[in-house]
């Protein structure tokens, strides 16, 4: 993303086009992160995340990686808030929403994709919330340990430990089932 830094500067100066480019660059990863966390309205929350990014853009200072980390920190906080709200409401529609959102239009691919996504989701649900957050921030958001630690408000060592345990738990789960992902 060579132009992300310039887009951030332009967007901070009020450029709508620059912010739209930022949205196109980061919104898919943010939406994926939220989806794996089983957020009910992924598109709506993604828009909320970027609305907050837009509102707080004037207070941001840093480079591209810092901006990416900042965006996913906002997304994570939004996800935690949504999870707290979801604890007070039934989750019946959430699975349907996640599977429907992954549809690509091809029936066979959709079936395989849904199965794959379902399997991955089951694997992720076997993790603790912190382990899941660490893995998703490391893989989906492509953040380094330090940025994940800042996003989760944890020490880098604790994040590294969470990461190892999450990988070990997934490996154990995969070998028990004997199925590749």
């Amino acid at each position, binding site marked *: 993303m060579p132009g992300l830094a310039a887009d951030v500067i*332009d967007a901070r*100066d*009020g*450029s*709508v*086009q*620059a*912010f*739209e480019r930022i*949205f*196109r660059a980061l*919104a*898919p*990863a*943010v*939406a*994926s*992160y939220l*989806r*794996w966390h089983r957020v009910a309205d*992924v*598109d*709506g929350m*993604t*828009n909320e995340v*970027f*609305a907050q990014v*837009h*509102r707080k853009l004037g207070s941001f200072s840093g480079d591209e990686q810092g901006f990416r980390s900042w965006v996913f920190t906002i997304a994570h906080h939004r996800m935690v808030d949504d999870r707290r709200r979801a604890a007070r409401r039934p989750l019946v529609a959430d699975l349907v929403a996640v599977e429907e*959102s*992954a549809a*690509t239009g091809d029936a066979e691919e959709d079936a395989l994709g849904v199965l*794959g*996504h379902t399997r*991955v989701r089951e*694997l992720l649900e076997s993790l603790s919330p912190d382990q899941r957050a660490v*893995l*998703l921030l*490391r*893989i*989906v958001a*492509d953040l380094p*340990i330090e940025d994940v630690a800042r996003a989760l408000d944890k020490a880098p060592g604790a994040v590294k430990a969470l*990461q*190892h*345990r999450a*990988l*070990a*738990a*997934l*490996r*154990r789960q*995969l*070998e028990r089932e004997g199925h*590749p*992902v």
Partner: protein
Amino acid sequence: MSHSGEFSGASRIPGRGPDVRTEWMAPITTLTDSEVDDLLAGTIPGGNDDLAPLAGLATVLRGSALEEQPSIGPELRRQLHAAAPPSDLAPVHHLGRRAAVWTGAAAAAALVVLGVGAQGDVLPASVQDVVSSTAERIGIDLPRSADRDQPGRSDEAPPVERGPVEGEDPTDHAPAGPAAGRGDGAGSQDRPSGGPADRPAHSTPPAQPATPATPAQPGAPGQPATPATPATPAQPGQPGGQSDPGHPGGGQPDGGGPAAEPAQPAEPAEPAQPGGSGPAVPADPAEPATPARPPTSGKQGQPETVPGPQGQGTPGQGSQSQGKPADPGKPTPPPGLEGKLPGKPENPGSPARL
């Protein structure tokens, strides 16, 4: 208590046996940070096939981030457009705002300069009159350019001597002529407001129409009536500098204005009023109006001498007596001299040109 045996600690907490966590953690904890990064990137670190399922899982997770492109919702788009202008317009907008600020500052500075200059009466006469007339509308009294014709001011046009106006009754103090009320008949520069002379000097007025001929005066008993005074010919405009085309020698700098319009013809003299016992002398017909003549080659600021209608103008002093109330102390020139009036234009017929 019957439940005491069930809650005995030894049977309730299972022994751990072999360390399962350590067993499953071993392949992970032995990886270096870079190998973990490779694993999370979807590659199998060090050819360890045991980690292939994990690499596959990471690939699926990474691929999911590219599957769907969310769209910007209407609320977010509204926020984007409401909070900030488009970047393409932002520089222009900022530039326009700066230009507006600079324009406003320049306008304010120009107003201050004009105000100070007008207060000090140092502006060119046309600008001075414009500023003073504008200031009068908002209740600020500023000197006019005509006020410069006061003694002691060497940088302005010398004071104008005002003589009686031909064609006017010397005893008549009522305004007579287009510049009525402009003076008091004694050379004063006082101007009542509202008269034609109050117009701004920057607009070049047409040449003054000829003064109507004075009707013949009834003669005293036993004497013939005074013949009518011929009409004063129209006066041309002055060249640039200090003269107003409509007011020859009036000290109005209007060198760049348009040419003066031709003067209007004079009104014919009225017949003498009966009242004397002597024979009434028929009034001379009024001279036809003389069109304004083109300006002569006077220097800027030093207009060519244009004597007043009474021939009392001095070099460099234009007469403003045209249209003024006549000085009651000065008699009307005798008949027969009307053809020698020094105020008569030398080159009638050609329009004045500035």
